[in-house]
């Protein structure tokens, strides 16, 4: 893509004085000292977090509950393993905690060699069995192509949605109630709303696919409002962000994984997938003026894992090797089945908001009305306080 098609917003020159967030987040607000809302929101969030003692108690209770629930079953919890640092570390922790996780890897056709090697080493060294959820590539490709044609910002919705769908489905199949996730405040709480989209909006996914897709989606693990309600309320499955219950330091976690599990660093957050590398390192900056590293690095600054100067220096570097970017571009294009001119054309389409394709807002409202009414009814008959 040429420079002219992807100007960065000019307001991006103003940078938060405590983080590295800037005007490339259109919703950013600065106080009189030039501190952005992201810093303030992080402080507010942290103020609501339990202290070390409470975290420890919660973790102990959680582990006891998981083990009790898993008694007599083949496994006691589900962990989604991508081969990246967060999920790898959760898997390592599970071993230290004497859990018996069902390890699930989600294969959407974009794994790279480092990811599969990390997964292999982790399972081998920790003695865990691997279950792989292989997406039907032809269907998944059709969905990914639809997102390119829709020209919306969050091209990761299909993957993120289906990963969760697959995990819930497997948890239900194995009658497990606990899923351990690698999500965490320490490295993932800063994220401007306009840089991504609601991952569980199945209506938006279906609408985008209906408009731009060419083959029916039959095999994808859907997780919309009603599926999620069924899994969570009826089956009692919940996801636990266990990294929030420990003192999670990413650099230390990496060092440990390298030392203990022959884990290999792939550089960049989520670069274990070639698609994600290209999306975050090429499409987002060039097409949407978004450099996600700013959010990731700001998070590390806020959680005391990096200095602001270090982050600013890192942002001077290209998102990743530029020769590799071009190679990735050719591969992504080919794998998605676009010709060169088609691919340039979709990359140059005017950007669209996800909402223009319709959302699950009415479904969610109906859901909350039902849940609200149920709660009221249960309180009325004394089933719930």
């Amino acid at each position, binding site marked *: 893509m040429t420079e002219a098609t992807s100007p960065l917003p000019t307001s991006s020159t103003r940078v938060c004085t405590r983080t590295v967030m800037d005007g490339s987040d259109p919703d950013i607000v600065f106080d009189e000292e030039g501190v952005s809302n992201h810093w303030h929101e992080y402080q507010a969030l942290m103020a609501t977090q339990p202290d070390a003692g409470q975290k420890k108690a919660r973790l102990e209770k959680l582990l006891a509950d998981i083990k009790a629930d898993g008694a007599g079953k083949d496994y006691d919890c589900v962990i989604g393993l991508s081969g990246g640092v967060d999920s790898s570390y959760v898997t390592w922790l599970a071993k230290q905690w004497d859990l018996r996780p069902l390890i699930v890897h989600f294969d959407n*056709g974009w794994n790279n060699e480092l990811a*599969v090697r990390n997964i292999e080493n982790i399972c081998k060294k920790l003695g865990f069995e691997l279950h792989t959820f292989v997406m039907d590539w032809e269907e998944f490709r059709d969905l990914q192509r639809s997102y390119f044609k829709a020209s919306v910002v969050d091209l990761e919705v299909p993957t993120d949605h289906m990963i969760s769908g697959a995990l819930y489905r497997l948890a239900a199949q194995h009658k497990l109630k606990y899923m351990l996730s690698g999500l965490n405040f320490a490295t993932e709480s800063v994220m401007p709303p306009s840089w991504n989209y609601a991952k569980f909006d199945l209506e938006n996914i279906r609408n985008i696919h209906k408009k731009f897709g060419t083959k029916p989606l039959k095999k994808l693990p859907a997780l919309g409002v009603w599926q999620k309600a069924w899994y969570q309320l009826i089956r009692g499955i919940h996801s636990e962000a266990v990294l929030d219950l420990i003192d999670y330091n990413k650099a230390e976690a990496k060092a440990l994984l390298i030392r203990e599990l022959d884990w290999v660093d792939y550089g960049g957050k989520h670069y274990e997938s070639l698609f994600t590398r290209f999306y975050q390192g090429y499409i987002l900056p060039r097409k949407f003026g978004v450099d996600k590293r700013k959010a990731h690095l700001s998070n590390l600054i806020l959680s005391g894992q990096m200095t602001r100067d270090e982050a600013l220096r890192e942002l001077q570097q290209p998102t990743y090797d530029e020769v590799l970017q071009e190679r990735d571009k050719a591969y992504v294009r080919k794998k998605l089945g676009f010709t060169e001119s088609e691919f340039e054309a979709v990359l140059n389409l005017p950007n669209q908001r996800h909402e223009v394709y319709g959302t699950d807002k009415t479904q969610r409202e109906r859901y909350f009305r039902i849940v609200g009414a149920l709660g009221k009814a249960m309180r009325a008959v004394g089933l719930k306080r």
Partner: protein
Amino acid sequence: MAGLSRMRRIRVIPVLTIDRERRLVKTVAFGKRTYIGDPINAVRIFNTKMVDEILLLDIDASVDGRGPSFEAIGDIVEEAFLPMGYGGGIRSVDDAAQLFRLGLEKVVLSSEALANPGLVTAIAERFGAQAVAVSLPYAKKLLGGQQVLTKSGKSKTGHAPVEAAKAMVAAGAGEIILYSIDRDGKWSGYDLATVTAVAEAIDVPVVACGGAAGLGDFLPAVQSGASAVAASSLFVYRAQNQGVLISYPDEADLKEQLFQKLN
């Protein structure tokens, strides 16, 4: 480095099978199929792992009575900077020529070769015997003995593996891939007796295929006369009864458990 240069190397070959929709599948005894993903990405990962060679087989082509899906094969071969062989539906010298133009190093014939050995001869004459392998999938017969089966294991030839191998080598085949259908996807080790019998009967390389469950299975196959070893389940599953995960042994492990134990 003298020690290294003397060390004998054995080709360790992942076999990837695609179906009529160009989906990567893994069979058990040429029957039950499991979908394992996108062949392009799988080949890309094997390529990074620096495997010696890959064999790509379209297991529906001869059953469907169609030729190779050249475009799909081309997309896959493009990701491989390693020698790659292709088999499935090759019915003419032109088919073979087109495959070589796509960048394949070797064509693998099977159903058509057994019905028409002259095709092996014609391709070998034009491109050299090293570029023509013949795959002989075989299984036990009900009343004892073994026979080669074609059309993805559906069609009986009545020929024993040794007899078929001799005929194919006489026709010009530069390599015989000896594929045990009974052991396909079973993780039960190679059929060493048949490897021995065939290797003794012919003077071209024999590739043992079907049954490998681990690195430890390679050495006995080579000691039985195989020049190379091939496997698929082993390289596409994390382990038996576990999830799909592309893997390939490290050079260090291959040296320790295979190469250094040869000679």
